[in-house]
């Protein structure tokens, strides 16, 4: 049974909005928690008329995230592709393999009713691909030379269609925003740690004086901020990874919508699963690993940016995923 791609898309979109909602809830809840904690622990010395520390937490996070996001925005799709060493394919090339790649990209551009992106090739034997660029008009699709030599036409079409799925769903924008938010949380943690360091140098007051009622509000505030920053950074990263995995399923479902052929992309994934050296993608590409067609070797599945390949193939073929370990061999 082939996958019902409309239903699969709906499911993935719904789950994404739940995760994004959780992200907002996380930020607001922690802001409130920070304020309450501060008022409890620094009772005597902290009593401003409005929630100072809580708003500080929220404001700093959003400000740093906004700044970070603006920096991401400054670089178009082509910049990202070139930064990992990919080479742009000339539109008038006569090389048969490159011609075929351009044709395939044009086909999917027609199928998805999206403008033709810039096409790049990355010199590496692994099968992989990525889409970059924050808007649909400034997108770049990169495939590896491994893709072109190891995949047949239908499989390459499936891979390109998956990358178009990311462009179609504006996934680069979502992941950049989430990455910026996580950076914001990390900044709070970093800043609070610095504050703690700072106050441990300056607070050379006698111990009994520091331990009096209320304590040093600066120290307590920094401590609370550090805990809150670490907590949100951890959970923000988890949510970001969960969103990323959901967007992979969505892009797979869109690939099927564009090509009306689940076997192309499923066979491409199978070929990747059989690859021995897949974890050895070029090192300079690691910072954009979440953007790849497949990204294995993440330290644990909770933080992985991509779902397991078997699970993606099962979804494409409309099966229920059963982990290998659960399969009891028949006698």
């Amino acid at each position: 049974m082939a996958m019902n791609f409309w239903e699969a898309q709906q499911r993935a979109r719904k789950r994404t909005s739940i995760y994004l909602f959780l992200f907002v809830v996380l930020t607001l809840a922690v802001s409130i928690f920070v304020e309450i904690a501060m008022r409890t622990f620094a009772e005597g010395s902290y009593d401003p008329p409005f929630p100072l520390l809580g708003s500080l937490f929220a404001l700093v996070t959003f400000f740093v995230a906004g700044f970070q996001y603006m920096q991401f925005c400054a670089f178009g799709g082509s910049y990202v592709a070139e930064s990992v060493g990919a080479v742009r394919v000339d539109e008038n090339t006569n090389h048969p393999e490159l011609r075929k790649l351009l044709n395939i990209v044009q086909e999917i551009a027609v199928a998805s009713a999206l403008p033709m992106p810039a096409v790049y090739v990355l010199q590496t034997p692994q099968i992989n691909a990525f889409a970059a660029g924050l808007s649909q008009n400034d997108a770049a699709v990169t495939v590896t030379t491994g893709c072109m030599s190891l995949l047949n036409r239908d499989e390459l079409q499936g891979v390109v269609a998956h990358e178009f799925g990311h462009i179609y769903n504006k996934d680069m924008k979502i992941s950049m925003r989430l990455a910026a938010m996580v950076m914001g949380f990390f900044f709070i943690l970093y800043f609070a740690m610095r504050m703690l360091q700072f106050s441990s140098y300056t607070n050379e007051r006698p111990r009994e004086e520091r331990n009096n009622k209320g304590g040093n509000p600066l120290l307590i505030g920094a401590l609370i901020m550090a805990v809150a920053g670490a907590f949100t950074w951890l959970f923000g990263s988890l949510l970001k990874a969960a969103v990323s995995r959901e967007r992979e399923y969505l892009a797979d479902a869109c690939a099927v919508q564009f090509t009306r052929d689940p076997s192309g992309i499923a066979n491409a994934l199978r070929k990747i699963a059989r690859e021995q050296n897949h974890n050895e993608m070029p090192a300079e590409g690691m910072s954009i690993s979440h953007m790849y067609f497949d990204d294995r070797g993440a330290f644990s599945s909770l933080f992985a940016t991509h779902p397991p390949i078997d699970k993606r193939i099962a979804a494409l073929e409309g099966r229920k995923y059963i982990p290998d370990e659960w399969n009891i061999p028949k006698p």
Partner: protein
Amino acid sequence: MLFQIGMGLLALIVVGLLWAMSTYNRLVQLQNQVKNSWSQIDVQLQRRYDLIPNLIESVKGYMNFERSTLEAVIQARNQAASAREKVAENGGPTGEGSIKQLAQAETVLKGAMTNFFALAENYPQLRASENMQQLQEELTSTENKIAFARQAYNDQTMVYNTSQQQFPANFIATLFGHHPAELFAVADEASKRPVKVQF
């Protein structure tokens, strides 16, 4: 009291006008989307009609004695090309449709092409020719693009037609002369898939 009733009526009229405006705009937008996706098909059809004479010219030397097959392809191509022009003359897919004729001509052309490629398999030299391989890639890609463009066109046409027929938008649709665009349907199940281009 009279004032309140007057205001209530006014509010109703304003809401009604706003609804009519947004429905009108939505229909126009959908109609333009249908037209745009038709022009995508149109471009690809034109490209295929341009490629076919090239193809025949290149194979003539190899398969001179398959004259009748080659002629069938040329004839089907010419008929499809003129059907395409007729659609353009009649104002595209949302005009007085002649898409049915084009779909029929396309079906005939597909049959002729399939026959041709089946015969071409008997000519190993033909398959080995580099020029032929390039033509093969171009034709395969064009076939795919036609199939994808048709898929997008049919999807968009369905949305346009449905929103014309829905109550109460159907009043606005009839008032401003919207009528359902024709689906670009290909006759039989086998020819729905793109022609397998293979030498």
